């Protein structure tokens, strides 16, 4: 159900159904691109984690089980590995939900909902969000 198209030598596009079953295919693209960009193990993990968390968030809290699509575009530039996630779920800027864990509370007493977004936004070196033509566009980048 997924389609990966090579665009030029160092960019690729993947369109997948908005379901948790698509997370694996998205990770394959991210890891492939991380490899092309020569990222070390830690940077590769951080980029994968960030993309995974935001894609999971789009599936669960964005589309909420409704049918839809997530488009993933990747690119290696001179100094960055860049991943762009695009969905048509309701408008959502992840930075608006950024809650840092509250250190005073024991972990099991804290709300855990914002944790994925916290991990995503603290894992990448650059993040930007835009709402364009009814689409959420999240751009994540890790330095090479």
């Amino acid at each position, binding site marked *: 159900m997924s389609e990966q198209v090579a665009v030029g030598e160092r960019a690729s596009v993947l369109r997948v159904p908005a379901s*948790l*079953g698509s*997370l*694996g295919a998205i*990770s394959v693209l991210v890891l492939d691109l991380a490899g092309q960009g020569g990222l070390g*193990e*830690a940077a590769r*993990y951080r980029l*994968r*984690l960030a993309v*995974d*968390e935001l894609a*999971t968030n789009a*599936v*669960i809290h964005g589309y909420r089980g409704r049918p839809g699509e997530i488009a993933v575009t990747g690119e290696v530039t001179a100094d960055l590995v860049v991943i762009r996630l695009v969905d048509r779920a309701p408008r959502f800027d992840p930075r608006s939900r950024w809650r840092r*864990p509250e*250190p005073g509370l*024991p*972990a*099991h007493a*804290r709300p*855990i909902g914002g*944790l*994925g977004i*916290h*991990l995503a936004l*603290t894992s990448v070196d650059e993040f930007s969000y835009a709402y364009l033509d009814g689409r959420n566009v999240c751009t994540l980048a890790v330095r090479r």
Partner: protein
Amino acid sequence: MPLSISYSSSADTSVIELAGELDASTAGELHEVIEKASARGLGTVEIRMAKVGYMASAGLRSLVFARQKMGEGVEIRVVGANEAVARVIRAAGLDRSVQLIDE
């Protein structure tokens, strides 16, 4: 991506051994095993993670679920997590709810 889970228990310890990747698509299976371990009511639960190559926040939710499910007197040990996985656990402050133990 797949996650394989095995469960065993001794006189006082439940052992949950994980191999593979723990994300939102696989964490549900782990929740079922945590419930099983909780029902056994033993004093220690050991979650072996040396063969977990990747963990997302869904895995953290599983650990929180385990902490909530087990009584306060139950010790939860996460054993052998690699550096990247341990970093995620620490980033969430969960290293104060479960014991992170090197193998």
